[in-house]
């Protein structure tokens, strides 16, 4: 909480909307490059000691995510489906609102994309009814920035058999393997597969003045009181503030990006903590508000010049939303795993990463060993589907299974489908009186097929590891999206994309977008490292443009 405080009349070099995985990185990179940077974050700022192990507070009260009452949403399970109320962990877009954003609260899975992810259309051909496309950048261009993200933030891991080319190893060694990891390895090897260490954005040894993981067991959906999860809150944001050129202003909810008659951005209008509207001028604006709020802010920023929303001459803003496929299988074993301790994931399988035409459908993904094993999480999802809901047998199963259960989760591609999208709801408003998010999402049939394929493999793996009992989830449909991808896609053609390969909007020269919305395709289910590598890369480009007077 150090550093500069900008005055309301100060025109900052860069105004960043959102302080999460991407915005937090941008703040550091641009302020250390010598520019003045103001970050506006809609949520509060918490310090490490303020994070609690309180499931009810975080999951039921929505203490640190978008809430169903203040920020309600409309969800449609397809373009022709009936609208329903959503948000707050129900159907719709789930994101965290605090300084550091999702990088504070995520599980910590830190997968690079592989070369194929950037050129899949060239390799596989187009898929009718979808917007599957190549990226305008390659893995080779991204590799230095993946490397920078890993070493600047602090990641644990060990190179594995299916890794993409990497210029060096990991800054900290693998976290200690858990029983779920050991069992995943045993089952996978028995089936001739090649398990590998799961890279995690959680440090296993002290790194850059932060303590190593203490294995408390509260990662996914919780902030790390030891600062071992390498969120931007504990890494790049304090480094940005230490330059004396960056201010992070919490509880500042941006409602509009303003432009002048020439179509250039002049600043933003936001509600402060007291809900007073303020204008902050800026030479350039970078929106890093996540794949739901970034397109929403553009759609909210209509003007005579941009009647369909700012930077939306293509009509692509909000379209091609991708959640990633995610499904959780469960296994019970004879002896205690105690997998409720330590980080969520220690081992994973990338054997099914590539799309294989022989399967008859598009898609690929990974499988990891983990446990949704905080106490209420287990009560919600841990017991077998035929378990009684009350009485002595219910209690016996709680006691017997809690420490003997693990999950094998599958993470998969989502095809970009134009009708899966973010819009403004024409009726519903949020608590500030702004049009609410409307989310429309229906998995492509191939998305369901690849999840089912991986679920079958996950069950086989746990069976081969000696599980007493295994079961699969009832439904593969994705309705709660917390990977919010593709809604302002990157591309070379201004008619079919929103930003160029440097994250500059095609329509507005001093407006940039960088977060999950920039992704052209969804990867295999863990987008955070790619979002952050893109932010490092974009910041490099922006600093060069600014120095050359090209913004």
């Amino acid at each position, binding site marked *: 909480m150090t550093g500069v405080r900008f005055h309301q009349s100060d025109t900052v070099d860069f105004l960043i909307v959102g302080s999460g995985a991407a915005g937090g990185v941008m703040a550091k990179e641009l302020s250390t490059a010598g520019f003045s940077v103001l970050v506006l974050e809609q949520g509060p700022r918490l310090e490490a000691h303020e994070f609690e*192990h*309180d*499931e*009810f*507070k975080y*999951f*039921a*009260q929505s*203490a640190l995510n978008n*809430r*169903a*009452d203040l920020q309600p949403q409309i969800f449609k399970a397809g373009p022709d489906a009936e609208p329903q109320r959503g948000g*707050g*962990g*129900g159907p719709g877009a*789930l994101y965290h609102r605090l300084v550091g954003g999702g990088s504070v*609260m995520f*599980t910590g899975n830190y997968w690079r994309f592989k070369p194929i992810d950037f050129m899949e259309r060239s390799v596989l051909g187009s898929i009718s009814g979808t917007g599957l496309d190549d990226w305008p950048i390659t893995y080779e261009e991204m590799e230095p920035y993946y490397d920078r993200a890993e070493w600047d933030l602090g990641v644990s891991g060990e190179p594995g058999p299916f890794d993409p080319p990497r210029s060096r190893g990991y800054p900290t060694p693998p976290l*200690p*393997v*858990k*029983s779920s*990891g*050991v*069992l995943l390895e045993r089952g996978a090897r028995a089936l001739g597969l090649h398990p590998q260490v799961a890279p995690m954005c959680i440090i296993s040894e002290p790194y850059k003045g932060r303590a190593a993981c*203490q*294995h*408390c*067991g*509260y990662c996914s*959906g919780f902030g790390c009181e030891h600062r071992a999860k390498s969120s931007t809150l504990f890494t790049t944001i304090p480094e940005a503030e230490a330059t004396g050129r960056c201010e992070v202003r919490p509880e500042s909810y941006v409602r509009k990006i303003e432009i002048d008659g020439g179509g250039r951005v002049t600043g933003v209008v936001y509600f402060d903590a007291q809900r007073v509207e303020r204008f902050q001028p800026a030479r350039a604006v970078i929106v890093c508000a996540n794949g739901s709020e970034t397109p929403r802010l553009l759609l909210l920023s209509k003007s005579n010049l941009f009647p369909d929303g700012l930077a939306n001459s293509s009509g692509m803003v909000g379209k091609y939303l991708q959640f990633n496929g995610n499904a959780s299988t469960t296994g019970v*074993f004879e*002896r*205690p*795993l*105690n*997998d409720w*301790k*330590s980080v969520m994931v220690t081992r994973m399988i990338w054997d099914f990463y590539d799309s294989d035409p022989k399967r008859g459908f598009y898609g690929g993904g990974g499988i990891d060993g983990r446990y*949704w094993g*905080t*106490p*209420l*999480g*287990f*009560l*919600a*999802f841990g017991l077998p589907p035929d378990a009684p*809901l*009350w*009485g*002595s047998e*219910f*209690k016996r199963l*709680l*006691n017997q299974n*809690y*420490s003997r259960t693990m999950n094998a989760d599958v993470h998969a591609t989502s095809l970009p489908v134009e009708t899966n999208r973010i819009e403004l709801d024409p009726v519903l408003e949020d608590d500030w009186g702004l049009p609410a998010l409307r989310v429309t999402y229906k998995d492509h049939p191939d998305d369901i097929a690849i999840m089912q394929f991986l679920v079958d493999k996950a069950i086989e793996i746990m069976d081969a590891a000696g599980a007493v009992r295994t079961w699969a989830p009832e439904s593969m449909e994705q309705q*709660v999206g*917390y990977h919010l991808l593709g809604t302002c896609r990157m591309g070379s053609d201004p008619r079919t994309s929103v930003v160029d390969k440097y994250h500059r909007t095609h329509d507005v020269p001093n407006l940039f977008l960088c977060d999950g919305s920039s992704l052209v395709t969804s990867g295999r289910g863990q987008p955070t490292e790619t979002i952050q590598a893109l932010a490092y890369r974009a910041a490099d480009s922006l600093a060069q443009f600014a120095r050359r007077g090209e913004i």
Partner: protein
Amino acid sequence: MAATGALVAAWMGTDPAAFAAALRDARDAARGGPVQFQALTPEQAEDLDAVAAQIIPTDDLPGAREARAVVFIDRALATFQSEEKPAMLEGLADLNRRARGRFSGVSETRQRELLQEIEDGEFFAQVRLGVVIGTFAHPSWGGNVDGAGWRILGFEPRYFWRPPFGAYDAEEMGR
């Protein structure tokens, strides 16, 4: 994380001030001593406690009764879940009618029969959710007294561990 949201969907969208009030009350209650119920009469609390004790019975391990899940339910009904209170009390009154008196007054066998009659209904789902959260949520919410619910699971709230964590990774370390 999204999945956990589904468990508690019924509790979403409530006023944070009411949550804060509930938390304060719950912390007071957790300090021990006789419980002052706020939403429930002592009789209603006793009947709900009997339901809770059937949902998670007491044996050689504590049950919902020792966890004082009913305190969580009471605090929720008094504050952030107050709009659910009429349905809860109506459901309880119906249960007592079925018991021809007080639910807590009939035999345990009869209690189980009565709950089997209503186990597919909304009232039972509502009570069960409250009992589960009251038994297993963080003790700051008024239930799960002294971690009674966590003892059922074998969960230990130490939040600081060193490997090996479980039997299979211990085995691997020994190799």
